[in-house]
Every structure is written in structure tokens, then in C-alpha cells.
């Protein structure tokens, strides 16, 4: 493709963009948040139409009109934001539009068995007849992947498929990709995880500010070259945790946390000024711990003390009252008001404490704070009045995070805080989190990116199947040790899990 231009009201998303994908290769597409990657992919799959420019497929000029047309052209896409029907089952989602059927009726048995085969082939941990709305974000991501792979596509576009995945699942996905690539098929792979580009891609195309910058052969390029081209400057990656003295006060102490569905006897201790990493594989129960702590889900038993005083947190408002904040891993469903603007979103959590007088909202103050966040997190938006749904995925994530940074929480529980955020901005966020810890705030950080956890945490608690299986200090923690505990099967009563 060449000469692609696409504008939105107030934004020029793409200018003179070009790209080429050869048969049998995996092309990685990288760029900062808001650089225009997703927009480009949407043009390819017929969701948007370009203002200018043209696409060529096998030398023939094509113009994807709509998603169906793109499918017919052999283009299959995994969107950055999920496009799943929460009320339908996994199988129904995967084969939507291609249901096996007889003359009149659908053949659901066949549907389920086909989905079952596919799921098995991909090694997913879901059942075909599970309702998608009940799955975790990571599982939903896997369903998206299964859906895209189930088309016999020639070009597979994956927009940040691994943002919500664990290393193990990422490896499995890369396996799949390698199996998918045939001499006449190709993959465009968008990711912010630099280390996986080496593993999966053949070439890397870098874009910046909606413009084409360069294309490198993965084998010849170093990551710092890529990053420099991406952000237009050198990055320093020197942030790491400052030491926390052991004798610091314990802020939050949780013992015997159980929930109906998964958690069994979880114990946690969080010290002042500490960043506590929570590691585990998909479905280990980290998100459940976080949600249980802020009272978003009911717990069957738990003893929680806050600075030594026992407290009962029965809903997130209580938690907020105690100075506990929670950033959800699911920004779209649980984190953001998509139809509202950036400043409303950023101000939401602290309206009552920071931005009101006599019940009236002080809009100027909200907007000033929002502008500050936009600057410090480098949120790419025309103004703080832009609606959040018009931001790129990574920038939405930054807005969700900014809401909690603006609010002065004593304890911050952040679930996959850097999901979909580019390398440059990640550094900013790490720096900010570190500063918070320095100020004496305590942070529980859930992340599926082990390197990130290893780098940021003072202590790492590892979970598996709803139990805590290990605890490692920053010094002793290594990738191998964490994985060891994460894959440990607690001598669980498998019966009651079933």
C-alpha cells in the first residue's frame, strides 16, 4: 500500500503511509501510542476508508469496502479492542457469520465440536459453550485469536494480541503464527512488547506520527535501533525500585481471603512505600484478589487490617473511603467512560475529594489536572476535551491510569497497568510509580509481563489456581523461580474446583 492518508475531525491519523507484506513473512508494525497503527489496520480491514491512497493485493488494486469484503479478500483481523458478543458462547463467537447449518436450522453440535477442535489445537483453556461475558480478559483475547485463525485468511492482522497475555501464552501464540505462515500467507503483527518482535517477526516497520519511518530486517536490527526510530530519541531505562526497609509499617494485611469461585486462603502483606508484584498464569486468580480487596466481588471469608485496624470493605466506594484505589485490567468495560471526554474520565475518581466546592464541580481545576496528566503521561489527544473513545488503545489505558494517579490513594492496586502502552510511555509510568512509592504510597501491581514485574517490584507474590504458592524478594526473584511457583499445582482438592 502506499500514499495512505486518513484524517479524523481534529486529528490527522495517517499521512503518506506505506507498507509492504511479502508472502510467507511476519511483518511487525511498531510505533508509539497513537502513531496510527490501529487506524492503518482498520483501513486494511475495511472499517474505515482512506481519504487518499491505494492498496495492492498480488499486484491488483483493491479497496476493502467493509469487513465482509475484507474477509472475502482473505484479510482477517484481531482488533486491539475486543469485538466479542458477551452474551454468546465461545463457539458462537468464533464462528459468527459462518455457522454450520442445515436447510433451516443451525447445527450447534457441529458448531461446538468444531470450536472444540480449534480450541484444542490452539491449546486454550476455555470450553466452547462458555458464555464469553464470564471469561477473563486474557481468555477473551484467546477467543479473539481463535476467531481470527478460524478464517482461512491469507493475511492475518494482529493488533496487540499479546497485551493481555502471559509469557507462556505468548509463546504458544508465536507457535501458532509460525504454523500459520505459508509461502502465500502473511501476518502483520502490532505489538509494544519489543522482546517478542525478535521471536516472531521477519521484518519490522516503524511508524511515527502517522508517517512511515523505516523498515528493518529483524535479524539485522537491534531493539534500541527500533526504539530510537519509534520515539525519535534515545531512551534511558534506568528506573528500578528503591530499597524498602523491612521495618516499614505494614499498611495492608490480608489473611485467609477466600471467594466462592476460586480463591483459597490467600494471605498478603503490603508495606508502606512498597511495590508488591502479583504474578501468576492466566486464570491464577490475581484479578480476583484485586477485586476482592476493593469489595468489587463478594468474599466468603477474609481478615483485612489497614494499618493494624481491622476493616470491612464491602464495595469499591468503601475501599476508596479507606484510600484504596483499583485500576481494572478491562479498561473498556470497567475502567473508562468511553462516551465522555478525557478530563471527565481523569477527574472522576477525585471529584468529591479534590474538585468540588459546596457540591459544585470545579471544572477549571479538573481540566488543569487533566492537562497535567496528558502532559506527564504523554497522552496523545488533540485536547482534554476529546472523547475517550476516539483515543488510541494505549492512550485510553493511560487515561485509565491517570484517573488513579490524580487521586491521592494510599494504596493503589493496579491490574495490568501498562497493557498496550508503548515502551517510551512505559518508562514514564514506571518512573511515576516509583515516585509514588518513594512518597510512601503502597502499590500492588498485577502484571502478566514478567520482566516488568521483576524490574518494578520490591517483592513478588506468585499465585496459582487461586492460592499463593510462593513469595520472592526482589533480590531472589528470577524469571525461572517465578515460573516455577506459577506452574506449581497446589495439592488442591481438584474436586472442589470442578
Amino acid at each position, binding site marked *: 500500500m502506499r500514499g495512505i492518508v486518513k484524517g479524523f475531525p481534529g486529528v490527522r491519523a495517517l499521512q503518506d503511509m506505506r507498507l509492504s507484506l511479502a508472502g510467507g513473512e511476519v511483518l511487525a508494525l511498531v510505533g508509539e501510542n497513537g502513531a496510527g497503527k490501529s487506524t492503518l489496520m482498520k483501513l486494511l480491514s475495511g*472499517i474505515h476508508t482512506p481519504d487518499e491512497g491505494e492498496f495492492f493485493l498480488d499486484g491488483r488494486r483493491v479497496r476493502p469496502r*467493509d*469487513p*465482509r469484503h*475484507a*474477509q472475502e479478500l482473505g484479510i482477517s483481523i484481531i*482488533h486491539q479492542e*475486543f*469485538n*466479542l*458478543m*458477551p*452474551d*454468546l*458462547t465461545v*463457539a*458462537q463467537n468464533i464462528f*459468527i*457469520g459462518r*455457522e454450520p*447449518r442445515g436447510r*433451516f*436450522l*443451525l447445527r*450447534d*453440535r457441529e*458448531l*461446538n*465440536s468444531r470450536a*472444540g477442535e480449534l480450541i484444542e489445537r490452539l491449546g486454550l483453556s476455555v*470450553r*466452547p*459453550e*462458555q*458464555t464469553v*461475558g*464470564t471469561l477473563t480478559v486474557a481468555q477473551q483475547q484467546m477467543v479473539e485469536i481463535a*476467531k481470527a485463525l478460524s478464517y482461512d485468511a491469507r493475511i492475518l492482522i494482529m493488533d496487540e494480541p499479546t497485551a493481555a497475555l502471559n509469557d507462556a501464552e505468548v509463546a504458544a501464540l508465536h507457535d501458532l503464527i509460525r504454523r500459520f505462515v505459508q509461502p502465500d500467507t502473511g501476518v502483520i503483527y502490532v505489538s509494544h512488547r519489543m522482546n517478542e518482535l525478535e521471536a516472531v517477526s521477519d521484518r519490522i516497520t516503524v511508524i511515527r506520527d502517522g508517517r512511515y519511518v523505516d523498515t528493518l530486517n529483524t535479524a539485522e536490527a537491534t531493539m534500541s535501533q527500533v526504539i530510537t526510530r519509534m520515539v525519535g530519541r534515545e531512551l534511558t531505562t534506568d528506573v528500578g525500585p528503591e530499597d524498602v526497609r523491612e521495618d516499614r509499617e505494614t499498611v495492608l494485611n490480608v489473611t485467609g481471603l477466600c471467594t466462592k469461585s476460586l480463591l483459597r486462603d490467600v494471605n498478603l502483606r503490603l508495606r508502606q512505600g512498597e511495590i508488591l508484584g502479583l504474578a501468576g498464569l492466566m486464570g491464577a486468580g490475581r484479578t480476583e484478589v484485586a477485586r476482592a480487596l476493593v469489595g468489587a466481588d463478594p468474599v466468603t471469608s477474609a481478615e483485612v487490617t489497614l494499618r493494624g485496624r481491622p476493616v470491612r470493605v464491602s464495595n469499591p466506594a468503601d475501599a476508596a473511603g479507606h484510600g484504596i484505589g483499583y485500576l481494572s485490567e478491562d479498561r473498556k468495560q470497567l475502567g473508562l467512560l468511553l462516551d465522555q471526554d478525557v478530563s471527565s474520565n481523569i477527574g472522576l475518581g477525585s471529584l468529591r475529594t479534590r474538585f468540588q466546592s459546596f457540591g459544585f464541580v470545579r471544572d477549571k481545576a479538573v481540566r488543569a489536572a487533566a492537562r497535567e496528566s496528558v502532559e506527564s503521561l504523554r497522552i496523545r489527544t488533540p485536547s482534554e476535551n476529546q472523547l475517550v473513545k476516539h483515543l488510541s488503545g494505549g492512550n485510553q489505558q493511560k487515561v485509565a491510569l491517570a484517573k488513579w494517579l490524580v487521586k491521592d490513594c494510599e494504596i493503589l492496586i493496579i491490574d495490568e497497568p501498562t497493557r498496550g502502552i508503548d515502551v517510551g510511555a512505559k518508562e514514564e509510568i514506571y518512573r511515576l510509580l516509583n515516585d509514588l512509592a518513594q512518597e510512601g504510597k503502597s502499590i500492588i501491581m498485577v502484571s502478566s509481563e514478567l520482566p516488568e514485574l521483576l524490574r518494578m517490584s520490591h517483592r513478588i507474590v506468585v499465585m496459582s489456581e487461586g492460592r499463593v504458592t510462593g513469595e520472592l524478594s526482589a533480590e531472589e526473584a528470577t524469571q525461572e523461580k517465578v515460573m516455577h511457583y506459577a506452574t506449581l499445582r497446589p495439592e488442591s482438592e481438584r474436586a472442589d474446583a470442578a
Partner: protein
Amino acid sequence: MTAPAAAAPQQTDQDGIRTLVQGKVQQLLAFASLIAIVVFFSFASENFLTYSNITSVLFSTVVIGTLAVGATFVIVSGGIDLSVGTGMSLCAVMAGVFIVNMGLPIWLGVLCTLLFGGLVGLVNGLNVTFLRLPPFIATLAMMLVAEGLALVISGSSPIYFEGDSGYTDISTGSVIPGTDFPNAVLILAVAALIAGVVLNRTLLGRYTYSIGSNEDATGLSGIDVRKWKIIVYVICGVFIGLAGVLISARLGSAQPATGMGYELQAIAAVVIGGTSLSGGRGSVLGTVIGALIISVLNNGLQITSVPQEWQNVILGCVIVAAVYADQARKRTS
């Protein structure tokens, strides 16, 4: 709202059997509210559980039930249809025009009426998809237009199906030999069965749930959302036409001014039956149970001679209790 399990169609599969049984149990539990009410009234009045009273309860469910089954499609797809009530009067009037004024044979007149109902639905569907009007507005407008047109076409007076005693048999006759079990009830049963199969087992049904669940994602999956939405409204329209036939056959006349208010009752039946107004979830069986709950309550309160001004008060409280119990059960199971 929080109950995932009233969810979309259930499948049969080795793995899925547990889900299936759970689902059935829950439907059974929704049914339980109805049973509880029936049991209560059976004790409250000896006249309640008689053959003739049961038929009359079923008969009184027919019109609301038919409208509600049609509306289920629209509501599952995430829309709403306020035009079912006055649309029904308009269709009844058109049945009169076709059969009485134009002298068409009954079967043809009925067919034309169903098609006319489909036309009403088509206009709704086009307004919702092509003009992109909110369904509430599009169908509210149709409600007003249908109310007016029914009066205009009929000249504001009922059309009587005089000579055609065959026509009233559609509702009040009985094909079951030796009984007076009204055909209308059988027609509703068959229509609901077909609707249930369509919603559960066909492409159309699948896409209806899909659109209601996430319209954008459905579109991005390459499905022509507009087309299917229009079809959904047309189906609802055909049910409006059917209700128009059933009510006019029951009364022996097309009453042009009788439909207003039925829409709220129909939607209430759908929602009591566990279909979510935000779309994506629901079932025809639930709707039928919802419609039955309403008519059993009405009948039971009348039969136990509760003073009429108290009937609505009690009706409101029982609806709250029934829906609450239903939801609470779903949450815990």
C-alpha cells in the same frame, strides 16, 4: 441484568450438559413464580383451577402473548417496539378491509393482514436502520401514525365480520373435537413454538442475539446488521398482524381504537420473562411465562373478588416479588 444464565441459546453437547441442565433448572425456576401464583389462587378460590377458568386465562393471554412474542425478537436485538398496540388495531382494521370491504376469502385476507403487519414492521426497521432513529422514537412515531390511520381507514367505526362466521372461528372455534378449547390458544402455542425455534436454532436467531449483545462487533464480524435488524422488525410486525387477526376474530369486529396501552403490557411480559431490555438475552419461553404471569394475576385477583382499586396495587407488588425472586435464584444458583 446480572444474571448471565438467562443467556443466549443453550446447546447440547457432552461437555455442555451441566450448563444445559443448569439453564433448564433456571428456566424452571422462572416458571416457579408462575406456579407459586397459581397454587396460591387455587387455595384462595375453588373456582380458579377449573377447566373453564383455565381456558379463559389462556384465552386472555393470547393477544398480549402474541404481541410479546413478536416484541421479544426486537428486544433481544437491543431495540424496542412501542407500535405493537396501535399497530395491532390498524392490522385488525386492515383485516376488516380485506375480508369485509374487499371480500377476499378468509385465508387470503389473513395472509394479507400478516403481510401488512410485516409492512408496519418494515417501516419501523427502515426508520431504525436507514434513518438511524432511536428505536424508541421510530416506534413511538409509528404508534401515533397507526393509531390515526386505524381511525381514518375505518372511518372511526368498527368493522364487523358479519357473514363470515368462519372468521371468528379462527379465535373462538375449536379444532379439538368435542371440546371448546379455543383455537386462538393453539395458534399462539404454535406461533410461540416456531418463534422459539427461530430464535434458538436459526441464523436469524443467532444474529438477533449477536446484534443485541454487541451491535458493532457483529457488524465487524462481517454480518449485515442492517438487513437482520430490518428482518427482526418485520417479524415483530408479522406478529402484530397475527395479533390483529386474533383479536378481531375474537371480537367479531375490528375495533379501531382499542390498541393503546397493549404495548406496555407486551413489553412488561417480555421483561418479566427475563429478557433484558438492553438486548442480547432472553427467550420466547420466558416471554410466554411472563405473559401468563400477568394474565393469571389479573384473573386470580378478579376471581377472588379483590376490590378493583386494590388489584393494581397487588399486581405491582407481586410483579416486584416475582421478578426479584427469579433474579435472586439465578444469582445464587
